[in-house]
């Protein structure tokens, strides 16, 4: 004869369940959705940790996901089509060691693109995400000259198949937004999600300002580095194995 489930048992089961699935939830939804009408908060510093030992040279899952998410259909013109994220293959000429890694906007704390932009179209949100205000970009491309990571693209021609979250106008500059629209909705960037699903989960997204986040924990306990750290622009994208 089964005992009727008491309220106490129910709460206990719920608590055990919550503890069990909490880490998974943390990976998928690191932040609560930002309520409409509230601005990004300086309490957050969104960033990525990319373990290049898990990044296969031939894998372009992150790149493909970005193109789909942001509506980067392109015109089969590699020199002028926009690329928010690209796979860079790095070889040490002395040892022959090779590795591969994704490079996108590094969302610098001191972004040169923001410094040089004459109109302020290049801007940094309070939470550290570097964006282009498409309304006031005049298309001068000085930010592209200034970016140490070649992370920006100029929209060289009319675009079709645009996504509502990423309007793209000919004559403006654009780059990775760290999927700000997803982050604001409590999600994570498309590249990270795709890497976990189709790749080897080399990318970890999180809040570098939150000491309890997975990314903060790993950054504080494992060796990580940043591309061209010597420039002092303090990117939010950290790498392991470069």
């Amino acid at each position, binding site marked *: 004869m089964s005992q009727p489930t008491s309220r106490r048992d129910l709460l206990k089961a719920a608590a055990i369940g919550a503890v069990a699935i909490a880490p998974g939830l943390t990976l998928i939804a690191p932040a609560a959705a930002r309520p409409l009408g509230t601005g990004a908060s300086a309490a957050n510093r969104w960033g990525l940790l990319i373990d290049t030992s898990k990044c296969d040279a031939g894998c372009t899952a992150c*790149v493909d996901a970005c193109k789909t998410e942001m509506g980067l259909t392109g*015109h089969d*013109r*590699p*020199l*002028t089509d*926009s*690329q928010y994220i*690209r*796979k*860079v*293959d*790095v*070889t*040490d*000429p*002395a040892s022959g060691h090779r590795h591969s890694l994704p*490079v996108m906007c590094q969302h610098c704390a001191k972004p*040169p693109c*923001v*410094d*040089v*932009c*004459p*109109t*302020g*179209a290049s801007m940094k949100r309070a939470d550290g995400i570097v964006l282009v205000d498409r309304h*006031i*970009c*005049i*298309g*001068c*491309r*000085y930010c*592209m*000259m*200034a*970016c*140490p*990571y*070649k992370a*920006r*693209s*100029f*929209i*060289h*021609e*009319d675009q079709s198949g645009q996504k509502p979250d990423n309007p793209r*106008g*000919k*004559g*403006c*500059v654009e780059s990775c937004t760290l999927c700000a629209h997803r982050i604001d909705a409590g999600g994570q960037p498309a590249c990270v999600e795709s890497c976990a699903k189709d790749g080897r989960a080399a990318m970890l997204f999180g809040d570098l300002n939150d000491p309890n986040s997975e990314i903060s924990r790993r950054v504080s306990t494992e060796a990580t580095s940043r*591309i*061209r750290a010597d*420039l002092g622009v303090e990117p939010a994208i950290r790498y392991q194995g*470069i």
Partner: protein
Amino acid sequence: MKRVQYLAIPAWTPGWMMVMAALAVIIAIAGGAVLYMEHQGHWVTGMTNQVVWGMPHVFAIFLIVAASGALNVASIGSVFGREPYQPLGRLSALMAMALLAGGLGVLVLDLGRPDRLVVAITHFNVKSIFAWNVILYSGFFAVVGFYLWAMIDWRMKRAYKPAAITAFLWRLILTTGTGSIFGFLLARDAYNAAVMAPLFIAMSFAFGLALFILFILGATTALNRPLSMELVRRKGRLLGLFVAANLYFVAIQHVTALYMADRVAVETFLLLQGGLYTALFWGGQVLLGALVPLILVFRPNASRCRVRAASVLVVLGGIAQIYVILIGGQAFPLTLFPGMEVSSSFQDGLVAAYAPTAAEILLGLGGFALALLIAVIGASALRILPASLGDGDEATAEIILAEGDPVAAP
């Protein structure tokens, strides 16, 4: 002090009409090129995501740099009190404004969104040297315009000297701002050096004076007005001095970079292995643009023809110099991983290819035509050019009483 009589260029003559029509046609063609590029988007140009500034910027920077240099003749006459230069002060100021207008025209029409130009005025990022240049360039028109007024209107003679000094300082700051567009780029190995600012000032002295000499030689020939050979030689020697100063800063720029181990790669590219850029540097900029003009102008009794040839070579060498700085500097790949070999779908690690298209070149030439058009119209509407720049018997009048009592022409 001798007096100088100024005469406007007679307008509506057949020759004048022909010049105007030719310039208007070039400007119209440039306008067509702009419409084509803006309608299609920049993919129809040679510019890419790797070489983001192309031929229009070469022309624009040349004209903007030359603009401040063209003002030097006026400054030498007024600020530094050299009398032989004073009769040419008005033309110097007019040319400075005309060249700046031509350069800015090209720059603005190459923007991705030229229709948003007003945004550049209503939204201002104080940390951007580009934004500061918006103020420096527009202020240049006001400052030099006032200076020109003070030179022309005898009632303004009290303002003459202060206006001259303000204009001189303004032009130095302006060219510092233009050079710093490159000097402030921390990540580009070919730029990112404080020497860019004085280098650009030296370039401006040379390019501006070369264009000024060519205009004077052309105008006096076309208008059949006397021109003293001594004045031509004097200007030629001054040009030589400026060309030497430019070479000096170029040497400093490259030797300093060669001394830094991490910049040897970019210097090797530009100076030895850069193909077109290396050829343009040594052949165009150094040999034809500097050494040959130096020989031409410093030979005793240099002829008018030699000074003209030297000026043409300085202009062509200057365009080559800016091409090497601008395009060569971008063609060399950014260093993301020092000491490593890299490859990607985004041209990482590769020397970027760039070939200017006809539309870009036409837009640039349109800037030259616009500058010349403004200069000719200005000199036709106002008494800008001296009736004579001759000496001895051929002169009808000479040397302005710059700070005394300027004389209005009949």
